[in-house]
């Protein structure tokens, strides 16, 4: 049970996301070979290494600055469109983080929601376009619908579930963005790897906090 979390817990959540991507990068690349050029897992691995290095190199940094630094490091990691997208997400987290050192459910929702909004501005994709947004936007909706004083483990579990369902739904979509759009109907039956990465990141947020 956790009604509030502090800044260290947010770092724990981010480390949880790093670890779950590290454990699944080969699966992500396999998914990508069906709809893209097969390197999404490698890109995500490189992205998460940038996150981890930033965390390790800045142990005493205030969370707001740390999140911004993570965003910039991700963008510097040369990840095609993944870099600017996930980089924007972390920069948005930095902008949305409330002043208070303790976050309740509403505060965490505001923070994550700001990250999603910032990334959405870069992506311009909507639900149904077979991109990362298919996992992110349902997660955002789920978080916003929750009560302000919800238990944070429950909140993150609900967000992860919404993201997972969103990623699953991409199986039935044709792509409107990126390399997969050239494949037309040939991508039907395959999940969008970016949306799966997002659902893993939310699951990583949830599990790391629960185990903490």
């Amino acid at each position, binding site marked *: 049970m956790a009604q509030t979390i502090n800044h260290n817990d947010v770092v724990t959540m981010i480390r949880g996301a790093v670890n779950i991507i590290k454990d699944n990068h080969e699966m992500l690349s396999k998914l990508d070979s069906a709809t893209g050029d097969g390197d999404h897992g490698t890109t995500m691995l490189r992205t998460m290494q940038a996150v981890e290095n930033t965390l390790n190199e800045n142990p005493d940094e205030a969370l707001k600055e740390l999140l911004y630094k993570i965003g910039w490091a991700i963008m510097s990691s*040369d990840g*095609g469109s993944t870099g600017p997208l996930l980089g924007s997400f972390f920069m948005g987290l930095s902008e949305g983080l409330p002043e208070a050192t303790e976050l309740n459910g509403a505060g965490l929702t505001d923070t994550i929601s700001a990250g999603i909004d910032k990334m959405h501005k870069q992506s311009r994709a909507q639900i149904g376009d077979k991109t990362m947004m298919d996992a992110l936007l349902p997660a955002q909706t789920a978080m916003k619908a929750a009560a302000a004083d919800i238990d944070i483990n429950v909140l993150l579990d609900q967000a992860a579930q919404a993201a997972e369902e969103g990623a699953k739904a991409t199986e039935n979509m044709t792509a409107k*963005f990126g390399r997969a759009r050239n494949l037309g109907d040939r991508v039907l039956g395959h999940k969008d790897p970016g949306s799966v990465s997002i659902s893993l990141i939310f699951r990583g947020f949830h599990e790391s906090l629960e185990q903490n």
Partner: protein
Amino acid sequence: MKMKKFINDPMNLTPELLEGFEIACGDKMAIQSEKLVVRATPKDESKVALVTLGGAGHEPALSGFVGEGLLDVSVVGDIFAAPGPPKVLEALRMMNREAGILFIVLNHAGDVMSANMAMEMAEKEGIKVKMILTHEDIAPGIDTPIEDRRGLVGCVPLYKIAGAAAEAGKSLDEIYEISERFNNNMATLAVAMNSATHPSTGDCLFELPDDEMEIGMGQHGEAGTGPTKILNADDTAKVMADRLAAAIDAKEGDRLMVILNGAGATTLMELFIVLRGVKKFLDTKGIEIVTSRVGEFLTVQEMAGFQMFFAKMDNELLDLWNAPGDSPYMTVR
């Protein structure tokens, strides 16, 4: 099939290839700040600078065209992946000058996203920069919106033409106008015969049965207009040239630049035979090939196939194309 390539650690491909590139071509280019390929002798600050960006794995593109009379900086990403906005911003800052910067971007999702973010940041800092987006792929059809048309080998002649205009001391607005004129009158169509492996993952980019080819295949194995039975050189040339001529509305008396860009595993022998077929076809229409190049400019690893490029030329474009230039993989004297 297992990947057969002369590589070391697959995570280290880009820095290692750049190191070798500098050993081979250090008289013309240099590497700065790890991922910026710059001219060995910088251009005079009074002249407009040319900057481009793109993933590695397409050698000699894009960095092979950094040099006198061509590009000033190529921002290199990782294999098939765009460089991030911070690196692009660094290049724009490095080239910041009163004359301005022409920023040439190929239409691929990652490149465009990175370029847009870097442009936004650069403009906030007061850097004078104009962007040109190449989008000459006609595989999805010529009526398809620009966002859905990829930038292929057409960036290379555009670097040469814009670079010559910059070297001649023209203003950013003039260079932009010339470049857009060329950009809006060019078209590329690709064809693939055999797949390639992604050098980071070792996986096949796509699969094609032994007796099939695919017209419209992109630079990373993105699908084209669907596989067809293999045609011979003359028929392939005719089918592709017909679509390209229609795309740029080439008519009797028009003068064209024709480039055949080998994808990596198609021989010069084949490309010459195809070019002959292109000429035969254009002759029947009264369209002249006023200049042509055959070779490997922008490759896709060991993919078999090529990109066929047409552009309508006028005297000014031709003069700029033929002006002196000296880069590792394109030299005009």
